[in-house]
């Protein structure tokens, strides 16, 4: 009847940074800081919306390189929005 499928997945990543929680927090909470690491490495994926509060929304649009690990590792340009 249809080719609609759902794969449910969960992953956990742990990192230890040599910086205080306040500094790491600011990298997520401050729009200028987040734009420097989230998305394109040159800051080429600016936020169209960045409302850092419960219920707030964040939206970005751009073309960024993403590494795909399957079926074989290759660099693929993927639209992310």
């Amino acid at each position, binding site marked *: 009847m*249809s080719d*609609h499928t*759902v794969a*449910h997945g*969960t992953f956990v990543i742990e990192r230890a940074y040599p910086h205080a929680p306040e500094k790491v927090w600011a990298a997520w909470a401050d729009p200028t800081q987040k734009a420097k690491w989230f998305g394109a490495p040159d800051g080429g994926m600016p936020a169209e919306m960045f409302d850092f509060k419960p*219920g707030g929304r964040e939206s970005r649009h751009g073309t960024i390189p993403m590494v795909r690990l399957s079926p074989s590792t290759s660099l693929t340009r993927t639209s992310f929005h």
Partner: protein
Amino acid sequence: MATETKTRSVTHASFTIERRFRQSPTRVFKAFSSEASKQAWFHGPEEWGRDVHQMDFRVGGRETSVGGPPGGPVSSFRAIYQDIVPDQRIIFSYDMDLDGAEISVSLTTIELKPDGAGTHLVYTEQGAYLDGWDKPDGREAGTRDLMDNLERYLEQV
């Protein structure tokens, strides 16, 4: 407010509920997509009285349900629809608030598959349960109660 110096914690858990209904996927989908139909089965125990419910069933649309036992804590359900494939799939994210305390954030996927003339429903919920307020098995039990409500509703109409 219930947010005084409570220890912060997160418990991650998933559960899956499967049900088979005699009604078609189109009929079951309508029980989720029509505001009047959903209000007929999506609610707490009878003694809670009627919740305050609103639904904007489209991708990006919101749904809220606010209610609770008389004189007891007020529960708020706040959802955003993320993906809708008519008669086949509904995905929404939601959070729960208990008297002002954020108690959980979840992602729910409902798949409807033809099962003879009826429907095989697969309900998958992936959740983050916050600060010890609620437990995954309690949420699963509550969701099974809702699926019982849905089955009774479908048999009535």
